[in-house]
């Protein structure tokens, strides 16, 4: 595969999956402008360091790694409270017919640390395999399993606390 073919493949991938990428970025920073900034930065970083993508079959895990790191870096740099605009907040407020426990769960996920949140999003919202999560985060599969398990337990205990309170 020539360099320009590789570039084309990555470019197509980025265009085709832009919605998923946006959602992932959004779930960290919770506002439109920051998410768009993250998308822009991630694309630039990815295409500029396209040589660091060794095998094209790792395209997804490679790009997700860049996206996640960029999102977390962004949060580090913008430690101040990120304000959610009112209309967006309204939009995201759960519809009334929804079951109450789900609302708590979605909220509980937001209260996890960025790394724990990453695990939940990749595994359950993005349906990524443990193997691919391990590749994305650059750790071994057992570590992913252990952390995922402890994150789930933390989620459960957080929610139990809430129910009691």
């Amino acid at each position, binding site marked *: 595969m020539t360099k320009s073919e590789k570039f084309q493949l990555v470019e197509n991938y980025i265009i085709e999956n832009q919605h998923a990428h946006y*959602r992932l970025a959004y779930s960290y920073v919770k506002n439109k402008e920051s998410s768009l900034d993250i998308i822009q930065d991630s694309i630039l970083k*990815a295409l500029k360091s396209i040589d660091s993508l060794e095998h094209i079959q790792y395209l997804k895990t490679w790009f997700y790694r860049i996206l996640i790191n960029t999102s977390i870096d962004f949060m580090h740099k913008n430690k101040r409270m990120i304000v959610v605009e009112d209309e967006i907040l309204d939009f995201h407020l759960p519809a009334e017919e929804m079951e109450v426990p789900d609302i708590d769960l979605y909220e509980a996920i937001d209260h996890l640390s960025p790394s724990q949140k990453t695990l939940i999003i990749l595994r*359950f919202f993005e349906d990524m395999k443990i193997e691919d999560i391990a590749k994305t985060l650059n750790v071994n599969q057992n570590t992913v399993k252990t952390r995922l398990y402890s994150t789930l337990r933390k989620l459960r205990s957080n929610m139990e606390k809430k129910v009691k309170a």
Partner: protein
Amino acid sequence: MSKLYESKKQYDDIEIPEELKQIVSRSIETAKMEKPKNSSTFKKWGAGVVAAAAIFVASVNMSPTLAQALSTVPVLGQIVHVVTFQEITIEEDTYNVDLKIPNVTGLTNKELENSLNEKYIAENKALYEGFQKEMEALKEVGGGHLGVVSTYEIVTDTDEILSISRYEANIVGSSSTTMRTDTIDKKNEVLITLPSLFKDKGYIETISTYIKDEMRKEMAADEMNMYWIASEEEIGFESIRPDQTFSITADHKLTISFDKYEVAPGSMGVITFEIPTDVIKEDLISDYYIK
């Protein structure tokens, strides 16, 4: 678990703004205009500082007279002790090597000086040979991207103490960074090791306990901080190695460092803790180096 899949719906419902499409295509165009380049792992070093250091180092290497002249300038004199080095670079398509080898000069204890310099050369030689082997292996299977970078930084340089940190970064897809530090007593011309500062092995426990407490405090204070601390169900940091990377600051404080990924996610980078002297007072042999 079904609850989790239900909240996936909320995730999927995140609104996609109209601007996204435009931003994506604009970013791709911008990237196309700029030539692809390999990302450096040493973002902490400002470009200006690196450039200035490169010129300085180049001139010191090229001209012994200049080096001599600089060493008589009070401030620069101390730096010149470690600034001269060899540099190896290979720039070959998707393979690149950039090794910067520090060289200590000016010690009268030549045995110490030579053993340090030989160690630095050996470290870089091992990196280089490892790289060549991997490069050949990769070429056989059709190529790939590989990079290795080593550099160093003078952490402390006072009248008494000289501390040099060397960083190695391997870039295969993502990067890992390891750091090793040598601390030299300039007056007595001896290499200081971590165990040599303490009466017995008790320091391992004292420092580990302190660091674990600090990690917990930092995590509680800010959820952006993430450390892996060992517990019953989690694998993670248990205790420092007897020869854990350490350094002594200009104001005589002990610092302990961990490599990237050693105790925390990669986003935290290389991590350094300063240990308050009060914590280790009981374990120290003397207050000569650490006060």
